[in-house]
C-alpha cells in the first residue's frame, strides 16, 4: 500500500502549505481544490520512489529536488501564475520550510547535547514548520500581498541558486554519519538570504515601478495639455479678432444700437481673457480650467503669483495645478445647488515659502481615507492625488487636506530653492 510517511511527500506537503500562503491573493484556476487534491495524490504516488531507491549521497539530493519540483509544478497546476512567479514562490516556500526545519534541528542538537534526550520526531518537525510559517506570514506576507507579481529574473536566479545550495547541504548532512551542526547554520543562512532577496528587492522594484508609471501618466497628460493649450491660444486669437470686429461695427452704428452689442463684447472679453500670472504654464492651465468652470457654472477666482513657481519644472507645475484644479472641478460638479459652485486658487509667496492653496465649496461629506490613501487605488481621483503628492515630495513640500465650514482645502507649502 502507499505510505504517506516518506520524506518526499512530507516535504512536499509542507511546501504546498507555504505556497498556499504565498499565493493567498493570487488568482486560482478553475476547480482549484480538485487540482490541489490531484497534485497531493500525485505526490503520494511519486513519494513511493523513496522505498524503491537506495538513497546514497547524490540520490539523496534528488529526493529534495523532486519535492521542490513537484511543489513548483503543483503551483503552476492550481494557480493562474506564470513560470517565473512559480519558481519564485517555490523557492520562497522551500526557504521557509527549510528554515523551520533547521531551527528544529538546531534545538534538537542543543537539547541532546545538554540533557542527552532525543526530542526530534514528526510533531516537533511540524511544530518548527508552523512557527516559521506564522513568522513569515506575520512579518512579510501580511503586508506584501502581491509581492510575487514583481519578481524579476535576477531575483529568481539568485533565490533558485540559494535553494539548490540548501538542497546540496541537506543531502550532505543526511549522508554523513554524524550530524554536522555548522551545516545547519549554513543552511539557515542560505534560506534567510533567499527570502531577504525576494522581499527586499521586490519592495524596491515595486516602488520605482510605481514611480515610473506615475511619471508616464504625468508626461502623457502634459502632452495632451500641450495640444489643448495650442487650441486655447488659437481661440484666444480668434476671439481677439471678433472683439476688434465688434468695435469696428460699433463705430459705424449710432449710439443706441451700439449699446446692444455691449453684452456680446463683454462675453467675448470674458472668454478671451488670457491670465497673465508671470508663468506661461500656469497661464495656460488657468485659461483651460477657467473655460471648464465657465461651462459648468462654477465661479472660479484665482490670485496667482506664477513667477514664484519658477523653481519647478514645467511638467511638475502642470501636474500639480492640473490635478488640484481637476479635483476641485470634479468636486464642484457634485454640488447640486448650481449657484453654490465656487472654487479659488491662491499661489503666493510668504517669506521663503510658496503657498499653493486650492479651495472649493463642498456641501457633502468627503471620504478622507480615500483621498489621502497611499494604497494603490484605481480611481482617477487617486491618481490625481498621487500626482500632487509626487510633486510635493519632489520639491520637499508639505501638504494639508482639510474640510472646514463647507470649504475643502488642499494646501501645500514649498520652501523656495535659492
Amino acid at each position, binding site marked *: 500500500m502507499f505510505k504517506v510517511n516518506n520524506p518526499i511527500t512530507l516535504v512536499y506537503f509542507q511546501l504546498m502549505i507555504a505556497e498556499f500562503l504565498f499565493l493567498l491573493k493570487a488568482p486560482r484556476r478553475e476547480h482549484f481544490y480538485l487540482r490541489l487534491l490531484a497534485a497531493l495524490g500525485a505526490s503520494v504516488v511519486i513519494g513511493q520512489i523513496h522505498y524503491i531507491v537506495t538513497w546514497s549521497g547524490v540520490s539523496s539530493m534528488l529526493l529534495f529536488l523532486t519535492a521542490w519540483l513537484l511543489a513548483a509544478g503543483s503551483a503552476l497546476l492550481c494557480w493562474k501564475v506564470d513560470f517565473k512567479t512559480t519558481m519564485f514562490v517555490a523557492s520562497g516556500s522551500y526557504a521557509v520550510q527549510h528554515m523551520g526545519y533547521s531551527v528544529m534541528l538546531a534545538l534538537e542538537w542543543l537539547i541532546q547535547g545538554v540533557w542527552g534526550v532525543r526530542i526530534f520526531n514528526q510533531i516537533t518537525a511540524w511544530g518548527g514548520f508552523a512557527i516559521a510559517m506564522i513568522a513569515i506570514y506575520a512579518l512579510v506576507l501580511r503586508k506584501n500581498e502581491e509581492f510575487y507579481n514583481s519578481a524579476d529574473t535576477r531575483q529568481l536566479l539568485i533565490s533558485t541558486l540559494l535553494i539548490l545550495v540548501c538542497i546540496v547541504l541537506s543531502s550532505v548532512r543526511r549522508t554523513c554519519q554524524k550530524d554536522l551542526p555548522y551545516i545547519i547554520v549554513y543552511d539557515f543562512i542560505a534560506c534567510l538570504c533567499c527570502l531577504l532577496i525576494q522581499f527586499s528587492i521586490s519592495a524596491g522594484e515595486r516602488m520605482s515601478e510605481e514611480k515610473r508609471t506615475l511619471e508616464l501618466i504625468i508626461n502623457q497628460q502634459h502632452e495632451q495639455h500641450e495640444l489643448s493649450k495650442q487650441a486655447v491660444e488659437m481661440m484666444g486669437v480668434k476671439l481677439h479678432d471678433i472683439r476688434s470686429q465688434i468695435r469696428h461695427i460699433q463705430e459705424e452704428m449710432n449710439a443706441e444700437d451700439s449699446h446692444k452689442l455691449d453684452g456680446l463684447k463683454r462675453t467675448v472679453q470674458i472668454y478671451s481673457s488670457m*491670465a497673465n*500670472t508671470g508663468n506661461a504654464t500656469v497661464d495656460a492651465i488657468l485659461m483651460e480650467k477657467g473655460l471648464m468652470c465657465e461651462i459648468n457654472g462654477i465661479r472660479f*477666482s484665482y*490670485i496667482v*503669483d506664477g513667477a514664484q513657481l519658477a523653481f519647478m519644472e514645467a511638467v511638475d507645475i502642470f501636474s500639480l495645478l492640473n490635478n488640484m484644479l481637476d479635483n476641485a472641478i470634479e468636486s464642484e460638479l457634485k454640488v447640486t445647488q448650481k449657484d453654490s459652485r465656487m472654487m479659488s486658487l*491662491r499661489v503666493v509667496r510668504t517669506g521663503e515659502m510658496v503657498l499653493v492653496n486650492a479651495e472649493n*465649496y463642498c456641501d457633502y461629506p468627503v471620504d478622507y481615507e480615500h483621498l489621502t490613501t497611499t494604497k494603490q487605488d484605481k480611481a482617477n481621483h487617486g491618481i490625481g492625488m498621487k500626482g500632487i503628492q509626487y510633486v510635493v515630495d519632489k520639491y520637499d513640500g*508639505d501638504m*494639508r487636506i482639510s474640510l472646514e465650514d463647507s470649504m475643502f482645502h488642499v494646501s501645500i*507649502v514649498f520652501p523656495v530653492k535659492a
Partner: protein
Amino acid sequence: MKIGIVDDDRASREQILGFIAQYARENGENIETVVSDDGIHFVSDYRGDCDALFLDVEMPLMDGITTAKKIREVDTTVSIVFLTNYSQYAINGYEVNAIDYVMKPITYFVFCQKLKKALAFSGKNHSGEVVIRNEQHIVRLPFNKIWYIDCEKNYVAYHTEKNVYRERSTMHAAAAQFEKMSFIMCNSGCMVNAAYVKKVAGNDVYVGDDILQLSRGRKKEFMERYIDYLSRGCC
C-alpha cells in the same frame, strides 16, 4: 467688527451693504460699515481699524489696486477682497496681499463665503497685548509684534524685531495664553508666531535671523497648523 466698501457704482454699494446687513442678522454679529465711492477719499480718511475691505477694481479716479497699495502703507493686516468685472484685473492681487476677489454680478451666497474668508484672515483676530513685568520695567507688548517666545530657566522671553523681554514665568503659562492665537509650539520650550515664520526646512524654523528647533514629535502638528494659518488665516 468693521468692514470697508469702496465702489463707484451706487447700486453695487447698496447691494453689498444689504448683504452685510443680512449676514450680520443671520449670524448674530454686530458689523459696522464704512462706505466710499472713490479710493482717494477712502485712503485719506482711513484709520486702519477695519477688519476687511471690499474694493472695486475698476474705478475712475483711483483704481482698486492702487487704493489697496495706499492702504497697505498704513495697515498690513486688514483683509482685502476685490470686486471686479474681469478676473484678469484682480489676478495680480498678491502684490497687495489680497486674499481673493468676487466677480460681478455678486450673489449673496458667494459674497458670504468671501466675507467669512476675509474675516478669518483678518490680522485683527490676533490683536491684543500682553503686559510684561520684570525688575526693571513694565511693558505692554501687542501680540502681533511678538516673533517668538521661548524660556530659559525660570524666565519666559518674548522676542520682537529688536528686543527681548524677559519675565518670571513658565512656558506652560505662556502656552495657555497664546496657543489659541497664531502661535504654534515648535518644541516644549518654544512657540513661534506663524505670521513671522520665514521658512520651515527639515526640523528648522527660520524667524528673522534666528533658527528654532522643531521637535520630531511636534513636526506634523506644527506643519498642519502652519499651513492652516497660511491658507485659512487661522490655526
